[in-house]
């Protein structure tokens, strides 16, 4: 049915119409080669509502999210511009937001970003002039035709604004803080959320139950990472806070004769399990974009 409503993006439209939305994350290469991005994007054609581009993920210097999103847009894809507050102060953040809008980018995901010391330039100054809540507030302010100092803009940009939440926070304090911060993000204009990667559907369901109790009614995309190996699972359990791969899944990856098939089976199974409870999924393929079509071939 055509309600005549105008949408900023396909992603907004899918979520508003209650379709199960799919975003896939790609990480730009370390260098000026565009082919890798083009190839990854081609695998996602016809599957993803949005291609979500990381912003110097894990604090590793590489091709930027804004440039990559612009390329994707030019090639006919719909990008989701991830923006961390780690590397730019409020002048650069506002300017890049306006730049993104002028390049046709509408979906923006506001995140804080990993600390500088985890990456490949640990000597760098961590900026964090704004936090992720303030970045959402900044977008809202720009949309009202003003910059953060109250100066008028010649024309106001408009964004479909996203944010991140972690359903797997491991302590009472960390969990409650996630809920509080999620509410603050919504108050400052967040229109959709993607979650930290989940492997345990029960943990995700409990989180969604909590949101229902809190009367939080914003679309949530369940975060899913393609689990490539036992080693990757152990690494994430050890080093990636808020991510927990249950033992049986690790066992499965360890004993399988076909890692790719098992990986696809796990991801599809997880998405099928959480599908009734959320608005969509956000997939991190980590280089295995070519297997994404197979993952979604199994989605009921």
């Amino acid at each position, binding site marked *: 049915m055509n309600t005549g409503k105008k949408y900023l993006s396909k992603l907004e439209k899918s979520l508003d119409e209650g379709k199960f939305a799919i975003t896939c994350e790609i990480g730009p290469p370390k260098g000026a080669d565009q082919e890798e991005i083009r190839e990854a994007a081609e695998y996602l054609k016809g599957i993803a509502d949005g291609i979500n581009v990381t912003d110097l993920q894990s604090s590793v210097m590489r091709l930027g999210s804004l440039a990559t999103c612009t390329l994707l847009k030019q090639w006919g894809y719909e990008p989701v511009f991830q923006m961390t507050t780690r590397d730019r102060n409020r002048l650069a953040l506002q300017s890049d937001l306006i730049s993104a809008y002028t390049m046709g980018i509408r979906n923006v995901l506001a995140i*804080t970003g990993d600390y500088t010391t985890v990456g490949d330039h640990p000597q760098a100054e961590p900026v*964090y002039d704004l936090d992720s809540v303030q970045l959402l507030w900044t977008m809202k302010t720009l949309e009202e035709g003003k910059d953060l100092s109250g100066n008028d803009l010649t024309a106001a940009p408009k964004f479909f604004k996203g944010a991140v939440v972690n359903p797997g926070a491991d302590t009472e304090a960390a969990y*409650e803080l996630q809920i509080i911060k999620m*509410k603050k993000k919504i108050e400052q204009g967040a229109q959709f959320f993607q979650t930290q990667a989940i492997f345990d559907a029960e943990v995700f369901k409990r989180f969604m139950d909590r949101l229902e109790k809190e009367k939080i009614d914003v679309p949530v995309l369940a975060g899913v990472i393609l689990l490539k190996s036992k080693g990757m699972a152990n690494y994430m359990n050890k080093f990636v806070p808020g991510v927990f791969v249950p033992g049986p899944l690790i066992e499965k990856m360890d004993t399988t004769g076909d890692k790719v098939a098992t990986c696809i089976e796990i991801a599809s199974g997880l998405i099928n399990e959480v599908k009734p409870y959320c608005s969509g999924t956000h997939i991190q393929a980590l280089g295995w974009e070519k297997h994404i079509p197979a993952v979604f071939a199994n989605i009921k």
Partner: protein
Amino acid sequence: MILTEFKPIEEILERLKEEKVVFIMGCGGCPEGANTGGMEVLNDMKTKLEENGIKVSGVIEIDFLCQKALIRSRLKPRKQEIEAADSVLVFSCGLGVQASSAVIDKVCHPALNTITFGGITGMWQGTERCDTCGNCILDLTGGICPYTACPKKLENGPCAGQGNDMCETDPQRDCGWVLIYKSLKRLGQLDRLMQFIPPRDYRKILPSSELRKTRLWALDEEEAE
């Protein structure tokens, strides 16, 4: 000497708007030298608060508010006055507000902004750290400074990087926002976490040229006329 300046009275009244009774506490150390402390200043604030309908349950000056053991012992005989108050208004640098918050089960509102440490970190070397940001919000964060307790200086809640309540930058370091959460929970003030804190004004870090012309800034500078 640690340099502090008065917060505008409007800002103090705004932060005290939920309070009916307030206990006033001043540091007898640096603020005395910076003209932001002393009994006269504290009593003057008492009058101002009373004029604005806020009762004052007591006034005390303690040397020094950066030492938690000293605050504890000096406040022992004043327990009733503290208990009668909804909150405490503290005239000290950020270290004093943090140390006071750590030992008093009430919200401690900063009455001053800390501008510069002038090379030293408190008369008493404690665990508290102040960023001399000139924009003190310690009463909104349970007396834990988000600028020094969180490496990302986040103002509206934690990142998702903590594991087992420790910081993503160092597993030996407490997550500052978990400390803030626990402190506000202890005070029954978790709702304060819902308040949106706008980005800080970095201009306030720079001491004004008027201040830099005075003896407060450097003893060997001529006092401006």
